[in-house]
């Protein structure tokens, strides 16, 4: 699928939702908070993935040169709620990564570390409060800045200004929680030949809120996460990028007063890459958030 068709598909899907909707996949803190006027929150979230599985299309192939990839990203995420319907979000990553790539026929270890590309989003939400439930539709245009350096052998930034938009819907009762987010990123051509393909993503979180204590404002959620990504054919400093993948995994979210703790794991259940690439790998996330 070429980029143009991908863009049309994404916009058609967004229009298909038909209502103002929100967020992108990993919203700061949580989808529902802070929903109060003047509320703000911070979250530190660590995301780790590693793989030494070499794929060609969707098939595993021999990896005699030991190609592998390890990416550790620590996100500092912030959110400010002007009014119930309007929030601004910011995400700044610190990246530590390494890979073994094949350059001129030889395996070479490449590393990169530092501030990555920051993301600013404007969440527009429409809440529907009912007797025993609350729901919201959201629409979030986002901008990714080229704050990350492209000078390392394994660059932490891509040097391009990228724009994205996502549409979401969430619904919650005291016991059930569901969140759907459809996102699209248009990746512009960056520096050093980095030119990633556009991305379409779908995130679904469905789960339960099995325990809460009204007296101590304490509780937890257990959810299942389904993530699907389609990334158009692109290039970075080590070769071809892009492909499609689906991952599944559990999410735990605990809270106590204004503190929130989140763990999730994404196990890849399907992956197909363009050309030959190291697989995405299992992704581990841990976050600690606070709202005021």
């Amino acid at each position, binding site marked *: 699928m070429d980029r143009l068709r991908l863009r049309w598909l994404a916009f058609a899907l967004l229009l298909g939702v038909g209502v103002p909707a929100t967020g992108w996949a990993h919203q700061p803190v*949580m989808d*529902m*908070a*802070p*929903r*109060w*006027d*003047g*509320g703000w929150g911070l979250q530190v979230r660590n995301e780790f993935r590693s793989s030494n599985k070499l794929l060609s299309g969707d098939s595993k192939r021999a990896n005699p040169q030991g190609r592998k990839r390890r990416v550790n990203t620590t996100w500092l995420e912030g959110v400010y709620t002007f009014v*119930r319907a309007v929030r601004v979000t910011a995400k700044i990553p610190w990246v530590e990564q390494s890979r073994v790539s094949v350059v001129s026929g030889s395996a070479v270890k490449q590393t990169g570390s530092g501030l990555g590309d920051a993301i600013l989003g404007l969440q527009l939400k429409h*809440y*529907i*409060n*009912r*007797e*025993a*439930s*609350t729901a919201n539709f959201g629409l979030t245009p986002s901008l990714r800045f080229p704050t990350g350096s492209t000078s390392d052998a394994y660059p932490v930034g891509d040097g391009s200004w990228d724009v994205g938009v996502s549409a979401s819907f969430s619904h*919650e*009762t*005291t*016991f*059930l929680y569901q969140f759907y987010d459809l996102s699209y990123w248009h990746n512009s051509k960056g520096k050093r030949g980095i030119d990633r393909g556009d991305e379409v993503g779908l995130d679904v979180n469905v789960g*339960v*809120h099995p325990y*809460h204590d*009204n*007296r101590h*404002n*304490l*509780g937890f959620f257990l959810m299942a996460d389904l993530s699907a990504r389609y990334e158009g054919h692109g290039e970075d400093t080590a070769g071809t990028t892009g492909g499609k993948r689906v991952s599944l995994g559990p999410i735990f979210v605990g*809270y106590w*007063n*204004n503190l*929130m703790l989140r763990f999730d794991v994404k196990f890849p259940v399907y992956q197909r890459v363009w050309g030959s690439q190291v697989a995405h790998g299992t992704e581990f996330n841990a976050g600690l958030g606070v*709202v005021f």
Partner: protein
Amino acid sequence: MKTTMVVAAALLASQVALGEELPVVVEENQTVVQVNGMVCSFCAYGAEKALSDLDCLDAADFGNGVFVDIDTQRITLALRPGEKIPFREIYKRIEKSGYDPLTFYLRAEGRLERVGEKLLLTDSKSGQLFSVAAFDSVPLAAGAVVRVQAHFDAEQVSELPEGEAVEITIGRVLSGSSMTGQKSG
């Protein structure tokens, strides 16, 4: 199969929870607000924070004078004895917290008085004035000295000037004399 059963049980439990409607009981020196959409304590933190610095609250109760119950979607405010209830301010603070106040519940006691077309009840402890618009049970007559639990649609106070009498519906007569002169409570 096991997963399907767990999901089905969860859905059933949720529906049962949705179907339950517990009667509202207002204790002495309290007011209760039924709030739409308040189903998660973490998300309701803002409402608790916004309400907890109201001057009329008794902070010794519930730790800060505010108790959020997501099971019933009700907020209970513990009041200092003799304080007037700032309904409009409470309404605004809950609304700015992302929720929609639905109904206020309160206790009042005093003598019912007929002023023109209106039946008025002035709370003897706080001096707060209420206009009695309706009765859920036996109507009461002017002159009766009563202690009642009442309620009113929260939307009413969104534009009501502070201090203006809210129109209440008397839900339960806790003690006092009815129109027929019989004692209750």
